[in-house]
């Protein structure tokens, strides 16, 4: 078995938004995830990070590129094969209010996957499994007969996690799994996710815009900007030594809960806004906001290159 649980190369996902306009949500993205590690995927809204996650679990069909999961190319699988694959690959969604079916009880929501994949031989086994899962995520077994609206946001997210864990997956895509929650509840859910990673030997793709949380949970981090990965590397290295001008600006914008630090340090202010991913020009997507942009940046898209120890940067001036 290879070291990597997931290898994505040249993944593309375009959406047609008009007769001549194509929204390039994910444009030539490649990355690998090692078994048991957490890859943090960060970027501003609209940069395509959610589309990457959704394409991986085949909610969207990729337009080009390959996704090797455990050595198998899942981008070209038929329905039957991909069903087997989804058992090992699950997703936790952002909005705990919209991602649970309001007409199902908690037990039905968690048990649905068990039924589809015929994982339980009889009713008793199914019930036991549901109780076990509820217990794992810190909910009471009586909760299984209740409906989602009876729960708080944090509790719903726990249900979402239980649903994802029900099928014993190896790999979970956490799409902004904590951003809708309050600070103290966020910490609870993060602790829960980190514990399951240890106990159940899980691999995560952790998609988020909260850079400080990503720093805390990820082994490696990739930064996306308008459909492309601009920088990736070991989390420590990337946060301490960001090389891409966008990463530098992004990290410097993160507010730190320490007044002395906040008042003491200079911020790199990025002017302007994220450009539209519809019909992007030929050059570097960040050129319009970059302090160091040259002629070449506007003409030629920089490729990711290794600058040592797996730290990859896509910038002409590095």
């Amino acid at each position, binding site marked *: 078995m290879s070291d990597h649980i997931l290898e994505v190369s040249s993944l593309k996902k375009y959406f047609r938004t008009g007769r001549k306009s194509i929204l390039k949500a994910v444009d030539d993205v490649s990355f690998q995830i090692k078994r048991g590690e957490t890859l943090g995927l960060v970027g501003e809204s609209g940069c395509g990070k959610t589309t990457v996650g959704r394409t991986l679990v085949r909610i969207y069909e990729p337009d080009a590129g390959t996704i090797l999961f455990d050595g198998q190319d899942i981008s070209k699988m038929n329905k039957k094969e991909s069903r087997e694959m989804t058992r090992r690959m699950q997703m936790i969604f952002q909005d705990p209010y919209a991602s649970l079916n309001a007409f199902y009880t908690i037990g039905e929501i968690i048990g649905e996957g068990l039924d589809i994949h015929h994982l339980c031989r009889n009713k008793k086994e199914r019930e036991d499994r549901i109780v076990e899962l509820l217990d794992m995520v810190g909910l009471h077994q009586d909760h299984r007969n209740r409906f989602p609206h009876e729960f708080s946001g944090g509790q719903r997210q726990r249900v979402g996690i239980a649903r994802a864990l029900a099928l014993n997956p190896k790999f979970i895509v956490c799409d902004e799994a904590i951003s809708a929650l309050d600070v103290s509840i*966020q910490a*609870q859910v993060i602790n829960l996710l980190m514990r399951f990673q240890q106990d159940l030997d899980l691999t995560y793709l952790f998609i988020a*815009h909260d850079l*400080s949380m990503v720093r805390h949970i990820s082994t490696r981090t990739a930064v996306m900007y308008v459909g492309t990965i601009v920088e990736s590397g070991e989390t420590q290295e990337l946060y301490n030594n960001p090389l891409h001008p966008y990463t530098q600006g992004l990290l410097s*914008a993160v*507010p730190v809960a320490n*007044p002395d630090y906040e008042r003491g340090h200079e911020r790199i202010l990025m002017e302007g806004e994220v450009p539209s991913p519809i019909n992007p020009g030929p050059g570097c997507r960040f050129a319009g906001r970059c302090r160091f942009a040259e002629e070449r940046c506007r003409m030629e898209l920089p490729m990711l290159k290794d600058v040592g120890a797996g730290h990859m940067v896509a910038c002409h001036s590095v």
Partner: protein
Amino acid sequence: MEERLLSIENLEVSFHTYAGEIHAVRGVSFHVDKGETLAIVGESGCGKSVSMQTIMGLLPSPPAFIKNGRILYKQEDILKKTDREMEHYRGNEFAMIFQDSMTSLNPTMRVGKQMCEGITKHQKQSRKQAREIAVEMLKNVGLPNPEQVYCRYPHTLSGGQRQRVMIAMAIACKPGILFADEPTTALDVTMQAQILDLMNHLKKQTESSIVLVTHDLGVVARMADRIAVMYAGQIVESGTARQIFYEPKHPYTWGLLGAMPDTDKQRGSELYSIPGTPPDLFAPPEGCAFAARCEYCMQACRKEDPPETKAAQGHMARCWLLDERAISVEPPEGVIPKPLAATDEMVQEGCG
């Protein structure tokens, strides 16, 4: 002596619902001085937005009603004002920036027209002058082509641009206090940094005060001079920014600080988290509202509500741990951020 602009005394606000009475705000007192930024921190449902809307006179009554308390603005009790008189305060003296710029701007009106509405009403300007002021304000908040933005509808602007329009609208009449209810929660970090800088810049320029409601302690650290921490309808701790971040006294404040991942904390280490969820405000618990989630809970905590106890000059906490009879408890390790070596400059700025 700083000029006291606004003081809230023992405010209690409840809502009547079919399920019973919700005690949303339970005896809140704080004050705002001229030119300072006060941050109110707390989780959703702790009553921070309700307190703010009560000051603005924006709460519909019924279902809301003010049970007790006074709100003094420049020594006048504004709770006694009629609706007519309040109209003078809203816009002229108080202005508000809301969290969701999409729903708080009128989608059927062009940006310019919405802005001029307030300006013509409060400043008795002609329509032509109002237009000039509006364009000037749009320019002040850093929108490129203010003339163009003036003629556009809100949905054609991005989230950051709409938030700028709201700020422009709020400061158009030069209010004494700017209330900002989670002004950057819906924005990305880079846009958030731009908007926060803009607010700080405008505060200096217009010498107004800011009351910032947020749950993001990073934003608080960047903006606030003083901080009030709210929990279950009460202020559980208040003090200067440095007091709250470096010498917090209340276990809830410790929990909030500990829940933030920090550069000092080991990657992958367990975050300090508060177990459980906030109490139901239909029936606030007897004693301290935080007792059920507090790991230092004593017998007294469940029986009686802790009084406001002074910890230092301008630093107050509601916790029995501060009582002289209680054992002394140190906050858990790794919760409190490390103060950096303070330079003379920072002390003079009033952070010290």
